[in-house]
């Protein structure tokens, strides 16, 4: 287990840098994590982050792109604009959640 200091917070991270304890996350940390991967958070990013956080808290799983579109209200195309390249993983990283495990 690795404890790292990010933006003044001591947090547990895995080997890649994903938070392993979602409860250590807060809004300020999200801004720092986003900046580290070149993202500046807009209201739409926050909508995606809030849904992913709530969904993970309720179901214990990080939402996939399909779930983000169908339940979270953020269409797939927009996800690729907000979090270019690897949207589901980037969202998980910024939201302090594990990478999604679902195949679809």
């Amino acid at each position, binding site marked *: *287990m*690795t404890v*790292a*200091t990010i933006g003044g917070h001591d947090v547990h991270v895995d080997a890649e*840098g994903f938070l392993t304890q979602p409860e250590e996350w807060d809004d300020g940390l999200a801004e720092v994590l986003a900046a*580290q991967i070149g993202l500046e958070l807009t209201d739409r990013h926050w909508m995606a982050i809030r849904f992913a956080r709530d969904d993970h808290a309720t179901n214990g799983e990080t939402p996939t*792109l399909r779930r983000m579109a169908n339940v979270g209200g953020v269409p797939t*195309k927009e996800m690729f604009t907000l979090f270019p390249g690897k949207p589901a993983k980037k969202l998980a990283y910024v939201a302090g959640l594990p990478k999604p495990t679902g195949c*679809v």
Partner: protein
Amino acid sequence: MTTTYAPAPVPTFEDAGTEGRKLCIICSKGSLDMAYPGLVLANAALGEGIETHLFFTFWGFDMINKETMGHLQFTPLGNPATHMPPMLMGLPGMTAFATHMMKKQIEGIDVPGVPEFLEMITDAGGHLWACRMSADMMHLDEDDLYERVEGIISASDFIDLSAGAQVIFV
């Protein structure tokens, strides 16, 4: 467990393995069970930022033919993987029953049907192509095909398209 204090690593989302990587998937089957491998892999690749093309040929045309794409079937006949007595699998109604069961199982794990899956793939930036020879054989043109198919292309066009790509045949 020991705890170490270290500077936080930052995930490398733009890693060398993905940069410039391209995937072409040839979909040649029109049965429900054989439609999914290509769709699932294409969707996964797109989610990893990989340029992805699907090429539909022969029976794979059923996946993009407007008339059939929502009604693919699964038959247990001659399929030992069902672990059912082969003699029963040819009974009337068995294909409809098996198709119904498989669709329920797919829905049960929240995986979409073929039309919605193709919509998801193209929303994610995936490209759909139809095979010229199959179109000619089946007397189909662009109007008969799912509207997000980008074009009907020849075998040599596909060879051009797949230059430098990893190719998966389903």
